[in-house]
């Protein structure tokens, strides 16, 4: 299953809700303001790195760049473009957007 999160973990609890319900081996894609959680020095970084042990974590590159964050991505987070986003949806049998 693919989980999609689009809000900053500093502003909303949706990342936390997502990580609580994502089963081992599933994928989490961070888009829009959610990409901040996948950057060095962010308060949510430890949460993401702990989650990366059991989940595949992705972040949308164009959203990172639009926020000046392209050079700060955490180790273990896979950066994808919109094509990669489409591939992730296609590769997983279902998806959930944590709005």
């Amino acid at each position: 299953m693919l989980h999609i999160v689009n809000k900053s973990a500093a502003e909303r609890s949706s990342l936390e809700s997502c990580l609580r319900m994502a089963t081992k081996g599933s994928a989490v894609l961070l888009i829009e303001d959610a990409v901040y959680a996948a950057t060095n020095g962010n308060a949510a970084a430890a949460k993401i790195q702990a989650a990366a042990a059991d989940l595949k974590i992705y972040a949308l590159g164009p959203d990172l760049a639009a926020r000046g964050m392209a050079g700060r991505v955490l180790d273990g987070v896979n950066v994808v473009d919109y094509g990669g986003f489409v591939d992730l949806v296609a590769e997983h049998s279902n998806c959930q957007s944590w709005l």
Partner: protein
Amino acid sequence: MSDMDEMDDGSGVVKKFMFLNRKAPHGTVYALEGLEVVLITAAFDQDVSMVFTDDGVFQLMKGIDSKGIEVKDFSKTYRALEGYDIEKLYVDQASMDARGLTEDDLIVDVTVLSVDEMANLMAEQDVVISF
């Protein structure tokens, strides 16, 4: 809602639809407009589950009185779901606990699930729509 009784897309396919309700009522319209989608989906004879987690559990509170904010109280609609063959209602135990709620506080009978049970239920769905 008799116009919804016989909807059919002609394919005969039955998929598992989960509606994940995560928002409190009234602060936003998602709870109300989400109910509209659930009712229509059931009219297509799909396999519908409604899940209430995070602040979504507040949608099912007894004793709602919305006259003071001059907005329609739609909470009784949850009681009518059974009449549309929507019988799979699940709430998240952890979300109830974090809000000091028990099943007695809720307007309908529900099945209380652990996080692991919720996660597994979600993973086996064909379509998940979240409000």
